[in-house]
């Protein structure tokens, strides 16, 4: 079960740079019409120059009203990739309420704004795909990454809350998290992965819409299963239902 260009457009947030631009590139070359959201119009235009069928949607995703207005002009989205995030390196003692809120507004509220806007048409059709670009930063927050860790961790909780609210009603809307890995982007590390490599995985995952993917977490190209306690592992073994992580190349 794969999304096709006939199903609708792909929306990528944070499409003006890094992984977002690379994702837009893959979708565009697979024949999809791609709407790229981002704050900087000129950066989006650079992406557009690389991607056939790309249209730039300059908008600050932290602005709920602007996001609603932007989506209202778009054709129905088949796929939403919530990729946009900011990563200010800042010691917590240097944060102010305002600087903190800016990160949360972008990384959490921006993701929520885009998701809510995309859900309208997806619910109407009972079909859609939402892929949230996520991180394990919340598990062991690094010094200097408090706002990022908290906001991205909260975004993972949002994924679960979204599933709790919609999946029983609209199982055709498939929602999951994806950890792209450490990338050689402005946000990532110098020796990281080529964003094009990660984008190929991310786009493949975003175009899979088997309902069993809802609630799954993929890291790079393979599934990360939720940790199971000893009791449950024994039960799984007894019931012959030990789960194996899925790998993108098999799907």
């Amino acid at each position: 079960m794969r999304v096709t260009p006939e199903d609708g457009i792909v929306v990528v947030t944070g499409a003006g740079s890094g992984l977002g631009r690379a994702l837009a590139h893959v979708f565009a070359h697979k024949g999809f019409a791609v709407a790229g959201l981002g704050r900087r119009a000129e950066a989006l235009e650079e992406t557009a120059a690389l991607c056939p069928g790309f249209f730039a949607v300059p908008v600050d995703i932290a602005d709920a009203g602007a996001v609603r207005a932007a989506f209202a002009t778009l054709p129905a989205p088949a796929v939403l990739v919530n990729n946009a995030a900011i990563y200010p390196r800042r010691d917590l003692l240097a944060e102010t309420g305002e600087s903190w809120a800016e990160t949360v507004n972008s990384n959490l509220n921006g993701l929520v704004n885009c998701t809510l806007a995309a859900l309208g048409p997806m619910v109407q059709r009972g079909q859609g795909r939402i892929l949230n670009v996520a991180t394990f930063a919340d598990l062991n927050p690094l010094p200097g990454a408090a706002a990022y860790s908290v906001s991205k961790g909260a975004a993972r909780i949002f994924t679960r809350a979204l599933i709790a609210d919609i999946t029983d009603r609209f199982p055709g809307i498939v929602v999951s998290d994806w950890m792209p890995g450490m990338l050689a982007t402005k946000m990532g590390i110098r020796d990281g992965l080529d964003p094009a490599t990660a984008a190929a995985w991310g786009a493949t995952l975003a175009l899979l819409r088997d309902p069993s993917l809802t609630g799954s977490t993929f890291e790079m190209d393979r599934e990360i299963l939720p940790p199971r306690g000893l009791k449950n592992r024994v039960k799984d073994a007894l019931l012959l239902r030990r789960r194996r992580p899925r790998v993108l190349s098999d799907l």
Partner: protein
Amino acid sequence: MSTLADHGDAPEGGWDALVIGTGIGGGTLGRRLAEAGMRVLFLEKGQADARSAENGLSEVALPEARAVRGLWPAPLTATVDGITQRFFAPLGSGPGGSSVFYAATLERPDRHDIDDTPGRPHPTGGWPLGFDTLAPSYAEAARLYRVYGTPDPLSPEVPLPLRAPPPLTAVEARLFDRLQRSGLHPYHAPTGIERIDGCRMCLGRKCPKACKMDGRSAGVEPALATGRARLVTGAEVTRLVMDGDRIAAVEATVDGTSRRFTARRIVLAGGALGSPRVLLRSACEDWPDGVANRSGLVGRNLMFHLNEILAVWPGLDGPPTKAVSFRDLYHRDGQRLGTVQAMGIRASYGEITYYLQRMLEGTRLAPLAPVARLPAALAARLLGSAQILVGLLEDLPYRENRVGADGHIHYTLHDELKARRRVFRRALRQAFRGQRGLLLGIAPDLNWGHPCGTLRFGHDPAHSVLRADGRTHDVENLWVADASFMPTSMGVNPSLTIAAFALHVADGMLGGRK
């Protein structure tokens, strides 16, 4: 969002008929009236939902979350044999009512369910409308609900007009064969599903297409399509405003605002638990015991069915079936028992856990309920490919079994019912002797999804609430079209009977139009 139109701006007056409730009763009746040219306003307590929704019944707890799923928002409070329980019943609230969650089984009852027949005396002396009088309405309901299936080979009656059923699956063929070899007479259960392209057999859950025929797809939606009907959702009727023996207005809370709607005819179709509550809550100076309640019977004679759940192993793995039904145990040794049918589920871990826990509840073993998970896990391994059948045991009317103005249910399991249950279980064991089958229940299991009888119809105003045509004895512009009218609960699912009666009531209303 794509929803059934929510006409919150619908005019409050000038309607030919105002229908309260949009389940199979209200939906079917409203459709008939609108198609015949009447202007119809539906008031539905539940919320409009996206048409693409496909959730089933669930134990989701927050009332707001239940409401958006079309589930009855509040738990039911029931005192059964003196023990009070609160639980979520398998009831819907929203366009289509409970029927959006049903398994589309549309069985016509046997003659003895309705008539007093030789050898099979009727407990109430017979319904005021006989089997033959209702037969055309049953046939019409079967056509409207696109029912397919095969006739009951044991029935001497003219069969319902049934569409050809789909061919039997391997599992179904095996079940038919096994039952026939045991001397039973299975038939393809009458089922109200259009089977359009991409049909996913939405048994027990909302169908996202106009494919499963329910109060929405076979009722409200065709009614709205006439252009003469409107639907207001989120409209909870608070009371009927009386003017002597007529209803002057229907008061409802819509989005937190109290509004008054008026129409020449009012139809109450809030279900056997909902409709009597509206009448009782509307008590006023002229109607101290509740509207249309001079008989004192409003809310009384509440009946359910008793479920006898049975796991059967056809010896083949396959998808769950709903296709098998038989009536060999329907009436035995002079006793009213009931039909046996496939439930459309397979025994899975969750279901078996549920039944084991329900079996333990209310017994001294209740503290063991969590432990039921372990045997359930084993059972799931063993029963993996079992199909679940249910025997529906008829319940009989007792005045003290009732629902009150507050919705509280009081119910006593009478010795007579318990005795018939023993007969039924014995008959079920005999029927499945030599086959791999297992009765899953221990304690009597009331079917909370099949309430009926709380506004029974009859000729005598002292002993019934409704007249034979569904109009109330006491209030001249009030009709009822839901499971409340049934004087007895029959040995089959109530859905087709509700639809047939709704059509009969609608025809009477249309005949008396001038």
